[in-house]
């Protein structure tokens, strides 16, 4: 437990020393998977809180339309798909990282976003629309930083050059679209199947 906590706190070190730290996370740190999952859990909780408490001017979600499960899934699912696809592509293009490691580094790379949630909530309570630039710059700055960290993490675990990392990241995004497309097709086919079974059942029920 103590080791996990230590590994978790290590994410704060990742922010400024990505190369050393991702290497450390990959090779030497203990319980990195558990630590990453706890971090993800914390992020989900924080996002849920921020959806409720972000100031009115910066919160364009309607309380009556909010669904906690959808919020959480919309965080976890993209990371999952990213991990799977990135792993699938990098194994073909001699990347050294495992799927677990991609998952871990991705979440570690999200640290700037995780620590920016609470400051964002506080700022949003104070600022007006004229000063909204501060809010959006802070928010997007943190997101871009996370993006860079995720890329660097990917680069370190696969032992790639930067160019190759970016290339594979782009391929992964294309794969994203494909997955979503297949998912929609699958869903609609499944719907058809259910209707089909339903009609057969109804037919049987009337005949027998």
């Amino acid at each position: 437990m103590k080791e996990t906590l230590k590994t978790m706190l290590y994410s704060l070190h990742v922010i400024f020393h990505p190369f050393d730290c991702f290497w450390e996370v990959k090779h030497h740190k203990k319980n990195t998977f558990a630590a990453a999952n706890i971090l993800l859990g914390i992020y989900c909780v924080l996002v849920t809180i921020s959806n409720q408490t972000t100031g009115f001017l910066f919160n364009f979600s309607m309380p009556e339309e909010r669904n906690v499960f959808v919020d959480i899934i919309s965080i976890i699912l993209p990371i999952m798909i990213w991990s799977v696809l990135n792993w699938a592509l990098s194994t073909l293009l001699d990347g050294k990282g495992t799927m677990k490691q991609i998952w871990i580094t991705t979440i570690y790379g999200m640290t700037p976003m995780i620590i920016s949630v609470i400051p964002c909530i506080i700022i949003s309570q104070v600022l007006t629309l004229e000063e909204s630039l501060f809010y959006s710059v802070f928010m997007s700055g943190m997101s871009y930083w996370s993006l860079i960290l995720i890329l660097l993490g990917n680069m370190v675990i696969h032992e790639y050059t930067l160019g190759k990392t970016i290339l594979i990241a782009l391929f992964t995004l294309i794969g994203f679209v494909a997955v979503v497309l297949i998912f929609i097709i699958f869903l609609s086919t499944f719907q058809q199947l259910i209707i089909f079974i339903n009609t057969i059942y109804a037919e049987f029920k009337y005949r027998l």
Partner: protein
Amino acid sequence: MIKIKRKKYILIILCLMLSFLSIPNTAYAAEPYKSYTYTARMQGIPSLNGYSPEEVYVGADFGTDGFNAPKDLRFDSEGNLYIVDTGNSRIIKLNGALELVAVINSFDNQGEKDFFNQPEGMFITKEGNIYVADTQNSRVIKFDSEFNLLKTLDKPDMGGLSTTEEYKPQKVAVDDSERIFVVSAGSIEGLIQISQEGDFIRFFGSNIVKPDFFELALRKFLTKEQREKRMIFLPTEYSNVIVDNSGFLMTTTLNVSIDAVKRLNSKGSNIMRHDGRTGDEYGDVTYEWRETKPQFVDLVIDEYDNMLCLDRTSGKIFQYNSFGDLLFQFGGKGSAKGLFQSPSAIEHKDNKVYVLDERNNDLTVFVTTDFGEKVLIANALYIAGSYEESLEPWQEVIRMNSNYDLAYKGIGKALFRMGNYKEAMKNFKLAYSYKDYSKAKAEYRTQVLRENFSLIVIIIIAVIIAIRLLFRWLHKKNIYIKKIIEGYDFRRGEVR
């Protein structure tokens, strides 16, 4: 035993009687349509009706033959109502109590008897002069208030500028400086401005074709022949023109929802305010891909500058205030009292709305409901900027319909003016009015800062001192946050 039974019967009968009392009274003013307002998500939610139909009149009610496709309706300054009965080529004059005064079939033109030929529009100036758009005769006729001919304005020489050969004046409007503006059928160049002598001056305020990105991109790749075969995009034509209370021209345009209603300045550009939730979109909020577009055929301005816009497609009348907020909509397609087949003209006088239907050949009169009256009173004060006075009427509106967002905005503005910024913020939040909320928040923030300045300074100093002390204490205990974060270096097994 029997006694108890009897008591029971009495009890049962009493209960029954009570239950009859609690059955709701079924007599209510049944408008055949339902009003709605838009939420911040642009979804319609039910609202109370602002207007209810009072009476429907056909030609026989005035002692004349039935109307035949009547197309325009005007009040003069004395309260007389004129109906332009297009199909019968006549104008019917009624007094304020809707009793027949005169039927104008013909007029004296330099000693000869002259007739209208399916006139579609008329206009009455402040001085009382009457202009009639005599459509099939291709002319505009100027009368004095007693229908004595002053001048006939025949087809002006447009010098080949017009794309359409025909000149069929459908509607006419005359502004305060006696400039005449004509809506001619199929004229895509905009309004035709003519002088008092009947000379062509210019085209005024033409609608602009907005370039479609897809179309522009496609045209880059097409050959000249292919390009010529593509659909031609023409500006939309005006359907009506009126003059508002402050002398600006207002127009309606067919088959568009964006900027379907315009207020034109002397340069011909649109100066309409769009502060409301529906923005520059008029009629029912629809989407670009929808096939049915609204067809605004007429509008009228009431004494508080509210616009009543008549949409032929949906048969509805939309009332907006001069800031562009939707107040009510009423009417609809159908044959019940208060519904229309093909409404063609609208007029307004003393909280009553008169709507002409060219297919039903009747005139429907609407009156404001209690709710409508309250909203209109509150809105008038709100528009005039006397927010404090509008507070109470708006609160009454909220009591009747708590979904009426404009009322929250009004209350918020009143409270803001009174300096109660916190409550103002609450109301702006309910109205989803971000701009106003932001303003109130800025004021509230300075208020709080000013009142609690010393306290805030003390808290900041205290926090700084506390952090200092905490770090000193951690230093004494030999605990370093940096070390905790970096942790052990497992390769060397020691603190880095």
